[in-house]
């Protein structure tokens, strides 16, 4: 690819590094096997921890006898929840639920199968696991509450009796004239859809290593953690001042997509390392991770009512979402709030009533997962659109075309307050159809059907909100006046003129180092390969929140652009002073600054750097010596509290995708084969094409998993049935089709280079698209499914035994 001219953020700039196919710098260490993952970090005298999971979903802990375990040769400590609770605070929850006490180890009571009840520290993990077998726990098993609808109604079986109810959150929102729109509509329908409990399941489990240094009173933590701001939770739980904790962020994280938070794990190793005065590490094994690693995603039932016209234009929605947060809610309830930012999807729906309920059950606690609740919501919206089409006997594609927000309507404000920044939905959909060769695909489906096969095409047109500002917390808790979720960086030019960018988060596969270097290179006109990127630790980093919400291209991109501008301003000021010319007469080109009217009057980058570091007498009066800049970037378009109707801008940027998969189903076994998949994607300006393409396709594959295979299943007793990769089915290469993808670019007017978010998009649409395809395949038999995952035994039972 040659330097492309993109209408980036309306600037019409000639781009040299942004949007060019360039290698991803992180890849170099990964192919050599020299990435630095937490498990690769070896500190002298490190001790190893292993945890004891509860075999019961709900039980009273009558006693724990760890005498034999503690006596085992090589064991340094056995800790129980009771002992630990004396020394630490409960982990702070997202919502203020003071009677729900969440400790790293269960105290008195276990609330899900797999909850950690004790931890052993030993010379190595083998001995620690030997010791676990010697711990005697006396449990009194109790009846659990597993079904979320039962949990909602339940008054006796309470996960947290002190809380007085299993309901963690119950809110009602009304945007626009729902009653009027329903009354005026030609028709309406109701639909129940269910999103199953699955997650991102990174191939690396969670791990943490801690070392307490008595001399400096600093607790150093290395962890496979995505969230720099979780040191705040760590500090409050351990009861230490925040500046006693140093989270190292130069750790490679082996995948996260939301879940790598590891708060209880980090609290445990932090606490133990201080007690033992030695480094302690805890690396979850796969079974511990799946059952009790706090990494499950949303588990949601939607009851939706749609009002629409005879020709399929949807006027209004009434949505009731009941979400199963599991035993300890963390930030789970907020995953019901984010989708408010795109509650009508890409459609011109006029009004919405939204009832959001989060309940506790005796299952593993839910954590944020890729899209923060948007994937289930998109699934529900798309299923509703398909249902409207089916109800009216109209084509699904045509119904979408009639409902998509037109390209001349942007910025477009939806009923819940978001202003969508930009988009060209009809064109992107058409690109997807062209890529899929839709007419041929229809013929292929129909000839397959004529041969007696079950074949279906899926269609989903979905949004990906990016760059959120966290104001959704306020929607659920009006004491949470949080109106920023900033991101910052520092850029240093050293005495040799070389550039180092410092970011304040880890990277977990999104290529943030490449993103950062590319934007700095673009802005400073310097080859990004010459720019070094480092990760500051939590004590030295500037204010930063985390790589959630498809936000780093927007937010780190914005911070990098801002810092680069300050570097350039400084260089210009030095040049103006020394060349005795006004700044307006000067031109910056690749670091050299010259007079536009007389090119011989110039200052080279080396000269500017020398002056900045060594020649105080040549600095403009009042300028500090040295050469660096910091920039803290606020989320664009936000920063306000909601209005009286609870309308607010949560996310600045909205990416869009059209998914068109083709599937065939084996009627004998119910096995779905995804044979083809086309996706058209628009995230504005693409900073690095390979990175964006990878995340789009990877997210899509993840979505195929959520649609067809992946499930954290529990039986009626609350026994966890999906602890291994043999039970939790993650798609292998054989389950993923050859994906055809195409990009479209509608730049965002709100970001530095027109970029939007791209880390979640594939995942936010694929489950809806696959469900649409499966239902298209089942339609000739008059059958349909609305519950994910659509595992083969369910489809087989439906085909062979009929509904119910």
């Amino acid at each position: 690819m040659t330097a492309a001219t993109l209408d980036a953020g309306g600037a019409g700039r000639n781009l040299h590094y942004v949007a060019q196919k360039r290698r991803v710098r992180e890849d170099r260490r990964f192919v050599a096997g020299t990435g630095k993952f937490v498990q690769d970090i070896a500190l002298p005298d490190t001790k190893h921890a292993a945890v004891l999971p509860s075999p019961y979903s709900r039980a009273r802990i009558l006693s724990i006898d760890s005498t034999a375990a503690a006596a085992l040769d090589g064991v340094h400590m056995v800790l129980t929840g009771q002992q630990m609770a004396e020394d630490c605070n409960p982990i702070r929850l997202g919502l203020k639920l003071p009677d729900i006490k969440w400790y790293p180890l269960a105290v008195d009571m276990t609330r899900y199968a797999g909850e950690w009840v004790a931890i052993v520290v030993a010379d190595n993990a083998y001995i620690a696991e030997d010791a676990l077998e010697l711990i005697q726990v006396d449990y009194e098993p109790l009846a659990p509450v597993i079904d979320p609808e039962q949990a909602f109604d339940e008054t006796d079986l309470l996960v947290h009796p002190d809380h007085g109810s299993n309901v963690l959150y119950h809110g009602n929102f009304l945007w626009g004239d729902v009653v009027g729109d329903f009354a005026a509509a030609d028709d309406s329908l109701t639909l129940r859809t269910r999103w199953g409990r699955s997650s991102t399941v990174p191939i690396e489990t969670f791990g943490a290593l801690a070392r307490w240094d008595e001399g400096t009173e600093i607790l150093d933590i290395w962890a496979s953690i995505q969230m720099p701001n979780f040191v705040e939770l760590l500090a409050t739980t351990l009861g230490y001042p925040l500046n006693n904790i140093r989270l190292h962020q130069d750790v490679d994280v082996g995948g996260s997509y939301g879940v790598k938070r590891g708060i209880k794990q980090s609290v445990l190793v932090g606490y133990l390392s201080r007690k033992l005065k030695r480094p302690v590490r805890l690396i979850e094994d796969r079974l511990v991770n799946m059952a009790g690693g706090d990494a499950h995603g949303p588990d949601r039932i939607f009851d939706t009512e749609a009002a629409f016209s005879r020709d399929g234009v949807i006027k209004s929605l009434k949505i009731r979402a009941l979400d199963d947060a599991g035993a300890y809610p963390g930030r789970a309830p907020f995953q019901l709030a984010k989708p408010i930012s795109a509650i009508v999807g890409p459609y011109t729906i006029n009004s919405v009533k939204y009832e959001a309920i989060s309940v506790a059950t005796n299952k593993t606690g839910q954590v944020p997962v890729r899209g923060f609740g948007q994937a289930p919501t998109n699934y529900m919206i798309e299923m509703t659109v398909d249902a409207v089409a089916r109800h009216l006997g109209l084509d699904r594609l045509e119904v979408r075309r009639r409902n998509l927000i037109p390209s001349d309507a942007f910025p477009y404000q939806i009923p819940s307050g978001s202003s969508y920044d930009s988009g060209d939905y009809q064109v992107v959909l058409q690109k997807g159809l062209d890529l899929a060769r839709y007419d041929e695909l229809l013929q292929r489906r129909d000839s397959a059907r004529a041969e007696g096969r079950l074949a279906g095409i899926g269609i989903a047109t979905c949004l990906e909100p990016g760059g959120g500002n966290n104001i959704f917390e306020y929607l659920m808790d009006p004491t949470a006046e949080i109106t920023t979720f900033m991101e910052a960086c520092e850029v240093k030019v050293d005495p040799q003129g070389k550039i180092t960018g410092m970011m304040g988060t880890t990277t977990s596969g999104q290529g943030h180092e490449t993103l950062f270097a590319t934007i700095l290179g673009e802005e400073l006109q310097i080859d990004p390969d010459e720019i070094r990127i480092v990760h500051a630790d939590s004590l030295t980093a500037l204010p930063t929140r985390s790589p959630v919400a498809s936000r780093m291209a927007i937010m780190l991109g914005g911070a990098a652009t801002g810092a680069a501008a300050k570097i350039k301003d400084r260089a210009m000021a030095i040049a103006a002073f020394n060349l005795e010319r006004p700044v307006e007469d000067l031109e910056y080109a690749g670091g050299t600054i010259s007079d536009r009217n007389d090119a011989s009057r110039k200052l080279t980058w080396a000269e500017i750097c020398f002056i900045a570091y060594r020649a105080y007498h040549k600095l403009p009066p009042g300028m500090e010596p040295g050469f660096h800049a910091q920039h803290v970037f606020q989320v664009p378009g936000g920063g306000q509290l909601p209005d009286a109707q609870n309308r607010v801008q949560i996310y600045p940027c909205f990416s869009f995708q059209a998914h068109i998969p083709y599937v065939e189903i084996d009627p004998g076994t119910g096995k779905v084969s995804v044979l083809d998949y086309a996706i058209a994607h628009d995230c504005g300006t693409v900073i690095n094409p390979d990175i964006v393409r990878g995340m789009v396709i990877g997210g899509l594959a993840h979505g195929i998993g959520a649609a067809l295979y992946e499930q954290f299943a529990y039986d009626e007793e609350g026994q966890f049935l999906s602890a291994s990769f043999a039970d939790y089915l993650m798609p292998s290469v054989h389950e993923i089709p050859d994906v055809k993808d195409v990009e479209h670019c509608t730049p965002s007017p709100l970001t530095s280079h027109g970029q939007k978010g791209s880390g979640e998009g594939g995942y936010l649409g694929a489950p809806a698209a696959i469900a649409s395809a499966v239902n298209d395949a089942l339609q000739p038999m008059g059958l349909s499914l609305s519950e994910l995952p659509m595992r083969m035994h369910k489809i087989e039972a439906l085909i062979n035994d009929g509904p119910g």
Partner: protein
Amino acid sequence: MSKREISLSINGKAHTAAMEPRLSLLDFLRDEVGLTGTHVGCEHGVCGACSILFDGAPIRACLMLAVQADGHAITTVEGLCNEDGSAGTLQDAFQDAHGMQCGYCTPGMLISAQALLAHNSDPSLAEIKDAIGGNLCRCTGYVQIIEAIQLAARRLREAGP
């Protein structure tokens, strides 16, 4: 527990070591030899993150004991680099095609691909899928990994035997 001594070759170098018989080959390579490129994903033989070459054939280091490697030759991802430590052809192709994201499954993918390309420099799509069918990747959806292996195969063919 009493220790047993073994001798083996790792990435072309001779090693002698003593260990408890229950030590897994994976933990031995990572914790005792210090070759942390081989990763731990499940320890029950499904994910393939721990793949290594054992006498040239791909195996899962989490399912073997270190003592079983006595007298055998092992190649880990570190051994795919050129003598000077630079990236080999396959590793180069993975970078050019961006056949990874978080890099956690990558060593296992490289090992499986290496085992394929060692005896087949013109693999079909189905052969590539079979070769990496036992390696899970959460990040990529496999497409760019397949493209990386195809690119490496082409470069190997162009370079000739």
